[in-house]
């Protein structure tokens, strides 16, 4: 269902796409069924966000679903779009009626004034100065990590879409008397792109499984960090490969590849860049120790 809807919403501006997404009640995805939600889990959200990335939707669907779940966790409600704000700003902040950030070791819901700016792909990356109207949610979560979750799930779809474009294009474009896809060097490049897409898809699933097991309060940060760090590498390698096999045409405004790659290029910096997560994962690993790393990795996926 989401795949069909998102295919239609592709290339629509936020003002056109958002009402349709709201009408489909995606905000209820993580809310339990007995509280009139869809009763979905983080694995379901990962699948939906993969489609958001695949269709290059100009809408903060992941942030919206997560914000609603965070509010639900505090028995709070707030209609309309609530943006997530981490130290780097609030994606789509200008469209929000309220913001969730971290303050004094807890999540907080607040309102404030927005300064607008854009990501490389031209999407809103605003900053917010909160006013005095702040409510504590009573518990903590890592907003940056939750934004990271959105980005690597979206990247899973975006890389799959870039791969699909690469296969289609190289199958049609002929040089030296045959399609580009018949050249071994091109085949090997596309295989590498497929490998990176596969890695991100698996990493996203693994992180979603950790969120389902440990909850969104921060206990799944190891898996989220590992997935975001791996995704950052995949974005670096994958975008370059996708553009390389497309030649000049892939570098134009008209051709759809940039709708995927320019977004991904920005996403590498959102929710934690390589240095940020490499440091956190490294610190956690050093705490666990050599044998501890293996024991923890296996304990965290074995039945409790």
């Amino acid at each position, binding site marked *: 269902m989401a795949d069909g809807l998102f295919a239609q919403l592709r290339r629509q501006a936020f003002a056109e796409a958002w009402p349709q997404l709201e009408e489909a009640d995606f905000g209820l995805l993580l809310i339990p069924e007995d509280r009139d939600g869809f009763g979905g889990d983080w694995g379901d959200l990962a699948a939906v966000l993969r489609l958001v990335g695949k269709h290059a939707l100009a809408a903060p669907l992941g942030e919206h679903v997560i914000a609603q779940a965070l509010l639900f966790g505090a028995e709070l409600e707030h209609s309309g779009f609530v943006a997530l704000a981490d130290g780097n700003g609030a994606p789509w902040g200008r469209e929000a009626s309220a913001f969730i950030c971290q303050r004094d070791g807890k999540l907080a819901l607040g309102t404030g004034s927005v300064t607008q700016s854009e990501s490389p792909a031209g999407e809103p990356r605003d900053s917010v100065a909160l006013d005095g109207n702040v409510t504590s949610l009573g518990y903590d979560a890592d907003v940056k990590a939750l934004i990271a979750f959105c980005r690597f799930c979206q990247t899973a779809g975006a890389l*799959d879409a870039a*791969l*699909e474009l690469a*296969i289609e294009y*190289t*199958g049609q474009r002929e040089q030296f008397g045959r399609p580009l*896809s*018949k050249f*071994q060097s*091109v*085949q*090997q490049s*596309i*295989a*590498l792109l*497929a*490998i990176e*897409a*596969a*890695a991100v*898809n*698996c*990493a996203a*699933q*693994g992180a979603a*499984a950790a969120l389902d097991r440990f909850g969104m309060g921060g206990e799944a940060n190891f*898996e989220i*960090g*590992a*997935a975001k*760090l*791996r995704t950052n*590498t995949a974005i670096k390698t994958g975008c370059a490969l996708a553009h390389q096999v497309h030649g000049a045409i892939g570098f134009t405004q008209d051709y759809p590849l940039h709708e995927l790659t320019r977004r991904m290029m920005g996403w590498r910096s959102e929710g934690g860049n*390589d*240095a940020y*997560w*490499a*440091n*956190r*994962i*490294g*610190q956690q*690993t*050093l705490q*666990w*120790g*050599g*044998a501890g*790393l*293996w024991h923890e*990795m*296996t*304990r965290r*996926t*074995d*039945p409790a």
Partner: protein
Amino acid sequence: MQTFAVHPFEAPDNASDIRRDLRAFLAQHQPTEDPVKRANCWTEFDPEFSAALGSAGYLGMLWPKRYGGHERAPLERYIVLEELLAAGAPVGAHWIADRQTGPLLLRYGTEEQREQYLPGFAAGTMYACIGLSEPGSGSDLASVRASARRTDNGWVINGQKVWTTGAHISHAMLALVRSEEGSERQAGLSQFLIDLDLPGVTIRPIIDMFGTHHFNEVFFEDVLIPHGALVGTEGAGWKQATAELALERSGPERYLSSHALLAEMIDAAGSDAPPDLTATIGRLVSEMWTLRQMSMSVAAKLASGEDPSVEASIVKDLGNTFEQELPLAIQAVVDCDLADGSNQARLLATLLQVSPSFSLRGGTREILRGIIARGLGLR
């Protein structure tokens, strides 16, 4: 499209029990006198350890009990494999028989062949090697020329196999041989289980650049094997060998065989690691964690009865890259005197030197990426 069908790995309920018991077993039985043996551990031959492992029920885990197996579930076996590799246990002697030769006999072999070999494989006392590559046939496996000529008394084998890991300690070789004279490429090939003690078999060591003896040349000069040594269908050798290779490529050894170095390096880094070492560890761990997710997905797909050949090639290629990167990344940030005799130095020096082989053995990187490209419809 989604290239890699992610299959959720539902760990069995007794997963933590399996790990606890196996870790206790290893604490008792895993040799400790040379820590360097933990690196690249699945090429370490230790018949005593393999026999102990067999006695304890960790080999032939999925096979019928009447052949000495234990009728366990595939994901239980997967847990055993990853624990053995993470510990750097010396699993080399039995690895091939347990991973592919045994399963191949269960799939294509006769009752006699199963009864003759499986109990020894499951006991960890009988070992097998892979007879595929020849001097003229590496990546182009279909060009093999070793021949089998049918006579009244059996098949007569002539030719040569090369890069045969463990032939010198193995009892039998599962060989891909041209059984139809004049046939070309994939046609006319058959698989034979050749007893390496037979007259006419000569095994010569090939010493690798690190100074170790794993590889061999194996010469067959008019070696007479019984008719019953044919495995499966005459002429179907290519299809059978392809199935065997899928088993060879789908396990966790593709990313876990150097784990001892990572663990050692983490411990050596200690609590006061400088930022660049901390970051390097973070990158390596994130890659390893991702590979585990991918490897578990392959195992789950295999366990569900589906063929994970593209996924297995992806995981093998990425795993090879990770294992080659591991010693290089460590060397870049750890100011380690490779001659200082420490565990870290010795593991590092070892893995630096054996690492070129990771992207060559079991299917070269270029071939694997060609398989992936074919899976994407490009070839």
